[in-house]
């Protein structure tokens, strides 16, 4: 009763306050819907609220959306409320002045719009948020618009551009406004201009806008469709198969559907009569021809629909044309969009190639790190270390264990890298002293003995760390990616690995070319007997070299562990690729390993690009390629020649 009275009062006030309306009064005119909004009926109310131009509307919408609007049971008025203890303080919707204190919860009702309604409110809020002082709000608003482009956002968005203080955001607003113009602009010329601006854009959003403009539907028609913006006519046999084309005609133009072999069978089964169908014994119905004959007999007596023959289909396809028709009627716009799309696609293609290049480089860095240790031991000692992969694993587990004790990821990484080197260096030296030393000049047996070690180490790791993958978490500053544009990006971890690979390349070159150890290593590589007679202790050199090679494997393990899971089997995932890298690159040469890694990385990425769904196939082709490559350069890319090759 009171509510009614207020309503009447408010209604009475309405003409008086039409030019400077009170928000509360406006709300009261839509009281029922605001108190219990639904997706269906909330739109006109929101239109009315926004249309009123009242300065308090955004705040109200925000609070409404956030479920912070309350209705007083006594008079149906709307308030905001603060909860203090068990009671509420009510505040006016326009101005926020306190209206009542210590209101009990039972006297007011919280208004809880459902999710659908809140989404609609959010759309209306966007235009206010676009000029919100809080930059996060503005960004959110832009995100909301770009998620769901619609014509009515053009004006508010444009209006907010001039006042935008943040340069990046301003640019984004301009772009977004441009997208909106391209799709919903009023004149053809406006839209074409907007589309041409998009042609220089690489972003996913821009490409989406173009493809939205170029959206088509497929339609069949006997004559050239009139007054439609035709994209192209589809050729049967090229753009779509005969069956697809006819099915389309069936669906859109009401032609009789084909009867499938299975339908024929089912139809025949339902007309079996005394072991015969249409007079034909069922035992004879084991070919499609016989079945067709029986079915035609049934069709002749009108119990089943007639078959559509191949001739019927031919005739229909000759009679009907199938067209792709733009949903957008404006052919100037679609032509511009088409052109823009092809320009964008060209640029996207170029950028994808660049992205692929980055991927290849990062893969090559990983292969380089994994293989260079192997290359050193193989080159200097002619020893194939099958346990090299397990040294990689050992390094990764070292990193994992370190992280159990040092929780600061950056610090743990700083500790883990040298520690992994030390652990695997020691393991390498131990292995060299106890096993490999006795097997020099018997390379095949070294291969097998180190394989035995590899089995044992792998199982040992399984026994200690279990079979589940262990995480090796990278520090926060390595998360994320360096985004050059929407197409080209590379994660920081991969950059870090690239840097690490470069570092090791430099370090190894330094050690081999500039230090005493390197000199002795090279001497032993080239002529062990001569080196020994010059007072170099080949035993010590071999031990050190083996340790160095193994130590690098440990570091590679930490690096690989950062982006792949640490498991006891991770070593075997890399060992064959590492061997391939060494073999392709040429033995005993750091540059060779680099060349091998680069080649294998590029090749693998290249194949993956050609056939992106299938990385297994990429690896298969890569190996076949290597087998063929060996035909032409049996000693690898960078081969030692003449007597030094030792043949």
């Amino acid at each position, binding site marked *: 009763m009171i509510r009614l009275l207020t309503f009447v009062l408010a209604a009475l006030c309405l003409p008086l306050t039409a030019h400077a309306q009170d928000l509360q009064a406006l709300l009261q005119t839509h009281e029922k819907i605001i108190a219990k909004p639904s997706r269906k009926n909330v739109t006109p109310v929101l239109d009315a609220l926004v249309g009123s131009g009242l300065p308090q509307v955004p705040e109200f919408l925000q609070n409404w959306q956030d479920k912070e609007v309350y209705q007083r049971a006594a008079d149906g008025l709307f308030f905001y409320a603060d909860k203090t203890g068990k009671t509420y303080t009510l505040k006016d919707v326009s101005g926020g002045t306190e209206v009542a204190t210590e209101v009990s919860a039972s006297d007011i009702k919280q208004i809880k719009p459902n999710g659908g309604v809140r989404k609609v409110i959010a759309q209306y809020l966007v235009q206010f948020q676009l000029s919100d002082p809080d930059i996060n709000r503005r960004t959110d608003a832009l995100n909301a618009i770009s998620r769901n482009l619609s014509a009515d956002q053009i004006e508010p968005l444009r209006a907010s551009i001039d006042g935008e203080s943040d340069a990046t955001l301003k640019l984004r607003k301009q772009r977004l406004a441009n997208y909106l113009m391209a799709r919903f602009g009023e004149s053809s010329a406006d839209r074409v201009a907007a589309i041409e601006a998009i042609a220089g854009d690489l972003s996913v959003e821009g490409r989406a806008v173009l493809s939205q403009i170029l959206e088509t539907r497929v339609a069949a028609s006997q004559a050239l469709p009139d007054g439609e913006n035709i994209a192209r006519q589809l050729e049967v046999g090229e753009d779509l198969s005969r069956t697809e084309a006819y099915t389309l005609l069936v669906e859109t133009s009401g032609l009789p559907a084909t009867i499938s072999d299975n339908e024929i069978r089912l139809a025949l089964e339902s007309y079996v009569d005394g072991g015969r169908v249409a007079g034909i014994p069922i035992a004879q119905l084991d070919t499609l021809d016989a079945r067709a004959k029986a079915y035609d007999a049934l069709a002749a007596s009108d119990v089943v629909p007639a078959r559509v023959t191949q001739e019927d289909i031919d005739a229909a396809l000759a009679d009907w044309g199938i067209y792709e028709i733009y949903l957008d009627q404006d052919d100037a716009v679609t032509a511009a969009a088409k052109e823009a799309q092809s320009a964008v696609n060209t640029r996207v293609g170029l950028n994808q190639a660049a992205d692929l290049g980055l991927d290849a480089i990062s893969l090559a860095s990983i292969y380089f790190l994994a293989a260079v240790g192997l290359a050193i031991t193989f080159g200097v000692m002619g020893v194939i270390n099958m346990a090299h992969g397990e040294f990689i694993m050992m390094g990764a587990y070292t990193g994992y264990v370190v992280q159990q004790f040092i929780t600061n990821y950056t610090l743990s990484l700083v500790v883990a890298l040298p520690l992994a080197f030390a652990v695997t260096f020691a393991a390498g030296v131990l292995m060299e002293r106890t096993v490999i030393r006795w097997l020099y000049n018997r390379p095949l047996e070294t291969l097998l003995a180190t394989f035995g070690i590899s089995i044992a180490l792998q199982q040992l790791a399984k026994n200690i760390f279990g079979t589940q993958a262990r995480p090796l978490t990278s520090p926060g500053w390595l998360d994320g990616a360096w985004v050059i544009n929407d197409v080209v990006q590379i994660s920081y971890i991969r950059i870090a690995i690239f840097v690490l690979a470069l570092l090791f390349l430099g370090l190894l070159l330094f050690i081999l070319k500039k230090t005493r150890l390197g000199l002795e290593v090279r001497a032993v590589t080239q002529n062990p007997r001569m080196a020994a007679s010059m007072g170099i202790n080949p035993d010590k050199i071999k031990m050190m070299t083996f340790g160095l090679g193994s130590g690098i494997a440990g570091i590679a393990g930490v690096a690989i562990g950062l982006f792949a899971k640490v498991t006891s089997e991770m070593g075997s995932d890399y060992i064959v690729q590492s061997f391939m890298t060494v073999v392709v690159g040429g033995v005993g040469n750091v540059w060779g390993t680099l060349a091998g890694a680069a080649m294998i990385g590029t090749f693998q990425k290249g194949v993956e690009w050609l056939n992106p769904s299938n990385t297994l196939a990429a690896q298969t082709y890569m190996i076949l390629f290597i087998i063929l490559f060996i035909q032409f350069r049996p000693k690898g890319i960078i081969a030692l*020649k*003449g*007597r*030094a090759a030792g043949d």
Partner: protein
Amino acid sequence: MSALLELSGVSVSFDGFKAINNLAFQINEPELRAIIGPNGAGKTTFMDIVTGKTKPDEGRVLWGEKSINLIGRSESHIARAGIGRKFQKPTVFEEQTVRENLAMALKNPRGPFEVLFYRKTQNGSDRIEAIAEQTNLTEQLTRKAGELSHGQKQWLEIGMLLAQEPRLLLVDEPAAGMTPAEREKTTEILVEAAKTRAVVVVEHDMEFVRRLNCKVTVLHEGSVLAEGSLDHVTQNPEVIDVYLGR
């Protein structure tokens, strides 16, 4: 009479180092020839080229009456054509008996299936006995080659060469590490072999070369420096320079 083997304009280099430089060489059948020269003169590379192990950068290697070019042919093909080679280090198959070693070298069809279905013949074992006799190895026929003394291994290898019945024998330092008595015997074997075929001996040991009593070719820096009897070449001032240094 045309030469059995004729090299002309042969050059080969390894990483810029000219191991053989415009070499010309020829040998007739039968003939015994010694090649001498200081280290790095290209003696071993010369043998590598003739036997197909190393492919020269340029030049021709012509063989036999029909003057077939040997360059680009496989080692086994050249061996079957009639060129046998003995390495500096004795290389016999130590795990196998002397008889097996000789049997393998015996001149017979070399294809896998011919070998698989090969039957021992009286003729074959007679040949083996004869060669063993010639090389002083009759007593050792059933022993493993690995158990032989150094000198015996050298003889076995020469024996294997003879079993191949080559028309040209290339022998690299046959006398290295032999006792004087063994040298004597080796000289005998080589001189005997050279009666029916061409034999080229590469040797450092002047005494040994003198005993062979044959034409000598001096190699230096990959080409022929002098050719003639040992006395003739040892009086050549250039040869003296090379050997004694300037």
